[in-house]
Structure formats: C-alpha cells, structure tokens
C-alpha cells in the first residue's frame, strides 16, 4: 500500500472516530440532563413533560455540536498527513510531500523513510483518546439515571399496550384482557347516541344504560361486579359481556388466567326535574274565597319532561275535625321538552272554601325516565289562607294620611342626642336661642312621654283619655298634672277591672301586680317628666341625666317584653324535684350520650387509602393504579371532586404520563379544606 493510500485510509478512520465521538457526547449529555431533571423532580421541582423533552434535546444537540467543532483532525488526506507528522516528528514533512499528488514523482525516494510509520497504533490511539471521555460520561449518566427515583410516572413499556389497572398479574399482550372495547347504549328515553370507548379505565353512563364490553384472545374470561358474577359469552376467540349500568358506582373485575383488570362503572343519575315558582311568590291571606289566583312556574329537566301539573290540597276544620280535598290543575303533557313554563289559575270559587280554610298549591313535574323513574320534581308549596271570621276586627287600619308628626321617627335616644348637642353649643349661643331650642325638644319629650303613658293606660284597660288628663303642656285643663305614682295606677287598675276600692295585695311594699308589670315604663315616664321640666326652663344640661335614665328604663321595658307571633303557648314549668319525690327515686343512672365519631370520618378514611396507594406507586405502580380505581369507585358518590381528580391521575398513570399534579390535587381534596385560625398571618416571617 502506498503512502497516499495509507493516508487516505487514516483520514477515513479519523472521520469515523469524530462522528462517533460527536454522537457519544450528545447521548451522554442528553442522559445526564434527563437524570438531573429526574433528580430535581424527586426533590419536588417538577418540569412539565414537554419542557423536559426540550431540555434533553437541546443539551444533546449542544454537546454534539461542541464535540464536532472540537473534533480534531479533519477528514482530508493532507490534514491526516499533517496529523501523522505531529505524532511522528522525525518524518520532516516526508509524508506530507509523498501524499501530495503534485509531488508524486518523489514518492519512490521517500518510501524508505515512511516504512516505519505505526499506522495501526496511531489509529487506535486516536480512537481511544477521542471516545474514552464521552464513554465515561455516558456511563456516569446511566448510573445516575438508575439511582434517581422515577417520580410518579408509570413506565408504559412495562405493560402491554392498553392494559390498564392491572396488578402484579399484568395481562400479557396475548391475554384476552389486554385490549377492551366498551359500547354504551343509553336508555331510549334520553335520546342520546351510543358511544364506543377503547381500553377504558372507567365507563360513565346514565343509569340503566346497556354497557357491552368486548375483547379477544385465548383463555377463559370471568367477570364480577359487587360480588356477583357477570355472564361472559364466547364466540371463537372473541368474548363479550353485557350489563346494565347500576345505580351505584362499582368496579367490574375481569380475570383471565392469572391476569386481572378493573373497569370502573360510573353511573350518571338522571336528575329529577327542577321546579320553581314564578307566581305566587309568597303565601297569601285572602279576605273572601272568591276570584282566581294566577299561578306560574318553571320546570327544567336534563333529558326531557313528560308532564307537569299543579297540585292543590284544601284543608278545612279545626281541633280534631279536619277534612281535606286534593286535586290537580292545568296538567299538560310536555313531550320531552327540557323546559316548560306551566301556567294556571286557581279558582277559589270552585273550591268552595270557607273562612279559616287553607289551600296548599305546588307545581309537580315528571320526567320521561321509564327505567328508574319517573323522576318527580316539586316546587315550594304556597299556602293561601282564607281569613277567619272576625280576624280583621282587631286590625287597626290607618285610612287617613300619616299624622302630622311622624312619631315613629321620635325616640328617647334621638332626643337625648339633640339635648347633648344643644348643651355643647350652649356657650356659643344667645340665651333666647337656647331657650327656644330647648323648649322645642321639651315639646317632643312631652309627646313621647304621652305615648309611654298611653301604653301604661292601655294595659290597665283604660282609654287614652284617662292618661290624657295627666299631661302638662297639652293645652288642656283637666286637673292636677304631674308624675304617676303607684297609688294612682292601682286606682286606675281597680276602676278598669271593676274591683272596687283598691287594696294592696300580698306584695312587698308598693309592688302591686300593676306596678310590677309597668315598672320600667313608669320609671321612664317619671324621668321623662323631670327632663321635660328642665327643658321647658331652658336648662338642657340638667335634663340630660333624667333623659339617660329614661332611656335605660325604656330599654329595660323592651327587654322584658316577649312577643310570640304565633300565639303564646302555655308556659308550664315542671317541678322536677317534686316529680322526683324530693329526689329519693333513683331508678338507675343512665349514662350520658356517647359522642359520635366525627362526621368526616369517611373523608379521613379516603385520605388514608389514598396515602397507602401513593406509597405503592413507586414499587408497584400497577397495584397502586388498582387501589386508586377502587378508591375512585367509593368516592364517586360522596366526593365527586376527588373522584374526578383520581380519574385524571389514573388516566395519566395508565398512559405513562406524569400524574404528579393530578395526584397532588387529589391529595388536597382528600385532606379537605385546610384549617385556618382567623387573624393569624399565613407566614410570620420569623422562622418555623
């Protein structure tokens, strides 16, 4: 082989080494980047999957480019010859001259000097020097990849395609459970089309939908749902099973040989119609049972309404003798419409109601559910009552315009505030102004005192006129004016009840029943008297103290009142000691009530199950997916949000994708709302 041929061969070898070195550096850098990202994920720094792929690719390409750029000898024969001259300095450019075609004539003369060049050793050394570093890095990256945790990503290659939710007995690719197809046929009344799902982990459908699962492969297939076997039919290699979507969520367990697969059945309930009233919006009392009452409402349903009607119940009677009649009104077929606005008029004449009778009205709608229904939705009930005889006799109807002074806007507190402000301004005002404003307040105070007096006298059975004579400043001359005292009141009470001469009863001091009942109002009345007297003479400062005492007394009177809007039931206070015959009866001690477990016990149990499943995730990902599937079945009814998050996580795990976010969301939902202490900052900044 001539020197030119040897140089050309070496150039090819060097080019191959350079290319291999570039590839090795790219691969090593990519693996190293992937290992570092996984290591970060283990410490909670999660990079999304697209980002992770991009980072690995960029690192690999960059490393390859740098390696190529620094690749050393190029592939041209001249540079290869120069590289050999570098390695064997004694050649004195003899090889470069011999390899140059322009000096081909000198080759025979130079051949003896080129005879001892160690071509093989040079090639090996070049290859070792170029490839050893990337190989070392590649091995290191592989080692790092092996020791870093895999995070929450189930390796898709570990299972047969589509084999979801398998345990340690993962169905192999040839198993009849390896690939499933589900067909869902909703009930006819829903009007929904049939759907087909490939390799589903769960099947969601309306209750009573026909669910058909199909697969193919050798070996027997058995199915079980809620402890009951589901029939599986065979047709050659193909198998199929069919069942109705149950009312409650469940896990369909498919087994074949040693392999097992779970499919969650997720029923979607057909909601009952939602019915609301538009008219009449409130309960009503009618004076006479005549005329008609317009009724309007709205009914909506998820799959369509069948009918709607107004139901009424008329109740008559009292005590032990009640009679009832009922019926419907305005019934209409709705032919599957999803929304309807039924209207009707309730004729009170037709019901032949009597005073004191009740009519209850509500709107009832039924849906077209012919499988588990029909679902019935009802509106709130409105009560229409016919007034009892004499019910309005005691009702004070204010036919006239409001009185000149709006007494309802007058309060002791307001008068007190006015007086306090006047007292503040008094040093800056002329005396005449002070007197004028003070007397204006005095008139209001007198009017308010008069109202308190009316209350006291009304309770005594006396007309307002009885009190009227006792007021100062009202422009009348009816005798002695002044404060009320208990003796006066007792006299008034005796007069009102026809009891003759007043006598003090068995009460302490002057505490007669009349006085006891009216005590706070009497106090208020007398303090008001003092206040108005001081205001009349233009001394608002001295009026403030009695005005405050009057306010306190009025508050006390208010608090003493108890108003029973529905009538006052008899207040029977049982004498427990007497009933127990002075406590000598000890028929036995009944233990206290056993505290019940917290209502969130079920949620806590779900959280514990989720924890256990997550612990399994690294060691036995398939078993963990099974556990998550079963947990999802239980969560579907009681914790739909958790079930949704679990479903997302399961789909991702089955697809070999990162499920960390979904699992984190599920964990938060399972743990419930965090407990917070109001008023404390989320982070104090002062350390742990």
């Amino acid at each position: 082989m001539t020197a030119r041929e040897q140089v050309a061969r070496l150039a090819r070898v060097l080019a191959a080494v350079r290319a291999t070195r570039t590839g090795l550096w790219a691969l090593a850098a990519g693996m190293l980047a992937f290992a570092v990202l996984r290591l970060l994920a283990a410490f909670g720094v999660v990079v999304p999957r697209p980002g992770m792929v991009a980072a690995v690719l960029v690192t690999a390409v960059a490393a390859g480019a740098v390696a190529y750029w620094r690749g050393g000898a190029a592939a041209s024969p001249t540079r290869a010859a120069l590289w050999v001259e570098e390695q064997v300095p004694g050649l004195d450019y003899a090889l470069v001259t011999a390899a140059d075609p322009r000096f081909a004539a000198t080759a025979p003369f130079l051949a003896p000097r080129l005879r001892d060049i160690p071509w093989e050793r040079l090639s090996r050394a070049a290859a070792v020097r170029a490839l050893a570093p990337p190989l070392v890095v590649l091995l290191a990256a592989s080692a790092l990849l092996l020791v870093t945790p895999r995070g929450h990503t189930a390796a898709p290659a570990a299972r047969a395609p589509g084999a979801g939710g398998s345990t340690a007995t993962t169905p192999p690719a040839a198993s009849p459970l390896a690939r499933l197809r589900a067909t869902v046929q909703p009930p006819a009344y829903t009007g929904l089309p049939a759907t087909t799902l490939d390799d589903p982990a769960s099947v969601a459908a309306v209750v009573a939908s026909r669910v058909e699962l199909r697969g193919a492969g050798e070996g027997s297939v058995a199915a079980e749902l809620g402890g009951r076997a589901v029939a599986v039919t065979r047709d050659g290699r193909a198998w199929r099973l069919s069942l109705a979507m149950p009312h409650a969520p469940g896990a369909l367990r498919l087994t074949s040989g040693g392999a097992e697969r779970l499919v969650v059945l997720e029923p979607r309930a057909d909601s009952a119609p939602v019915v609301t009233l538009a008219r009449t919006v409130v309960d009503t009392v009618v004076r006479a049972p005549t005329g008609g009452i317009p009724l309007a409402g709205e009914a909506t349903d998820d799959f369509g309404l069948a009918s709607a009607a107004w139901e009424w119940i008329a109740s008559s009677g009292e005590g032990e003798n009640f009679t009832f009649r009922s019926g419907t009104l305005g019934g209409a077929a709705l032919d599957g419409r999803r929304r309807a606005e039924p209207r009707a008029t309730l004729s009170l004449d037709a019901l032949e109601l009597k005073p004191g009778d009740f009519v209850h009205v509500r709107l009832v709608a039924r849906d077209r559910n012919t499988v588990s229904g029909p679902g019935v939705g009802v509106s709130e009930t409105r009560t229409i009552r016919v007034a009892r005889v004499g019910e309005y006799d005691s009702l004070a109807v204010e036919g006239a315009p409001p009185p000149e002074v709006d007494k309802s806007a007058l309060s002791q507190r307001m008068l007190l505030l006015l007086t306090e402000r006047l007292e503040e301004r008094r040093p800056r005002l002329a005396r005449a102004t002070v007197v004028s404003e003070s007397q204006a307040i005095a008139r209001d105070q007198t009017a308010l005192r008069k109202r308190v007096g009316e209350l006291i006298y009304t309770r005594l059975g006396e007309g307002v006129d009885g009190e009227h004579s006792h007021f100062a400043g009202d422009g009348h001359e009816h005798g002695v004016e002044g404060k009320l005292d208990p003796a006066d009141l007792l006299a008034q009470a005796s007069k009102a009840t026809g009891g003759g001469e007043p006598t003090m009863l068995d009460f302490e001091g002057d505490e007669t029943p009349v006085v006891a009942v009216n005590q706070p109002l009497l106090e208020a009345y007398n303090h008001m008297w003092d206040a108005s007297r001081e205001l009349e003479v233009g001394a608002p400062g001295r009026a403030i103290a009695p005005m405050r005492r009057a306010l306190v007394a009025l508050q006390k009177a208010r608090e003493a009142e108890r108003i029973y809007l529905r009538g006052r039931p008899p207040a029977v206070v049982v004498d427990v000691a007497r009933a127990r015959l002075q406590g000598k009866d000890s028929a036995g001690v009944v233990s206290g009530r056993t505290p019940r477990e917290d209502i969130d016990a079920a949620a806590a149990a779900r959280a514990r199950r989720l924890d256990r499943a997550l612990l399994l995730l690294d060691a036995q990902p398939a078993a963990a997916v099974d556990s998550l599937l079963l947990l999802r079945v239980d969560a579907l009814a009681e914790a739909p949000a958790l079930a949704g998050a679990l479903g997302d996580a399961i789909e991702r795990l089955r697809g070999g994708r990162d499920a960390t976010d979904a699992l984190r969301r599920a964990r938060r939902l399972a743990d419930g709302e965090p407990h917070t202490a109001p008023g404390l900052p989320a982070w104090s900044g002062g350390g742990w």
Partner: protein
Amino acid sequence: MVTGERAAAEAARRGEFTFCTVQYESGDWDSAPLVAPNIIDTIARYTAIPVTPTGVIAPLGGDALHRYPLAYLTGHLPVRFTEAERRNLKRYVERGGLLFVDDHNHDVDGMFHKTATEELTRAVGPLADLPNDHELYRAFFTFADGPPTTAHEMNGWGDNLVHEHLQATLVDGRIGVLYSSKDYSSEWNYHPDSKRFLSVDNTRFAVNLVVYALTR
C-alpha cells in the same frame, strides 16, 4: 316552653336533657303544647336523667336544633318543608339526632300523614315498619307488644285503626326518624299534674324514646 338561646345553651352546658319541639314553616307545629312539660315530668318521675324543667322550641331549619338529641314534630295540617329545613333535617339525623314525628290527626288518609311522610322520605329516606321487638321497646320500660296503644286511635276520628307498628328510618343501624300514626300528641297533651288521675301512666313510652335518643 322557652325559646331562649341562652337558657338552652346553659342547660346544654350543665349536661341536662332538654325536650325540643320542632317549629317548621308550614302547618300547625304547636298543636300539642303540653306534650313537652308532660314528658319532662315523666323523665323526672322515672329516671335520674338531669332534665331542664321547660322545653324549647327550635326551628327545623336552624342550627339550634343540633343541640338536642331528641326533637318532636307534630301537627294536623299539610307539611311542606323548605329546602333549608330539608337540608338541616338530613344533617341533624346524620349527626345522631332522633326526630320523633307524630300524626296529630292519627289518620293515614289525612294530609299530615301523606305530606309528612313524603317530605321525610325526600329529606332522610323512606320509612319502614319498626319491628315490635326493636330495642326501642326495651330501652327503659319493656313494651313486649311494641308501641303502646293510645286512647285516641279508635276515638271515632281519624282512620280508626290501631296501628301495630311505628315506622322509622334507620341511619347506621339506629333510628334517625321515628314516625307514629298513633297520635301520642293527643294522648300526652295534658298538664302533668293530671297524671295522678291515671291508674297507668300513659307517657312511660316517652322515657324509652328519651333514653334511646340519649344512649344510641
């Protein structure tokens, strides 16, 4: 009866049993006002359970209801719960409360029965006959034949039936709602002082109700 929140809370703090009458938006919930003192008197007579001398009235839709392990609901007129009442009743029963519902009409064709059972079914679940050997009938006194018959069942009004069973909705094995068509509301609606005229106290079954509600 009192409705004072403070008094009720104080009684609860002392660990006393307080008889609760349920007030609902529709109907005549206060048709048997003397049942409460009568049962309180009965509890005091036969047991050592600390008991508040007056009952309380708690709105069915309010949180106050949850203070009382036993709640009593009655009436003659149609019963329509509001959505809040329905929701609160379900919570009450799930959290261990016992609602005792009695048809003051003692009439299975009456509107109280029809509407109340419908509402209870919607709120809590369907009612079923309670077996006459249920532990309720042995919780304090023994009623070997099941619920005691009332003098009102055959009084010419209502359905004129002697109802053999009470009905109940069980929640986790215990009674959540107990429904009676026997008209205990009429049977027990008298002043406790009148009890001395009875040869056999007809309110003894109420002790079983209270003891069951307190201990199960």
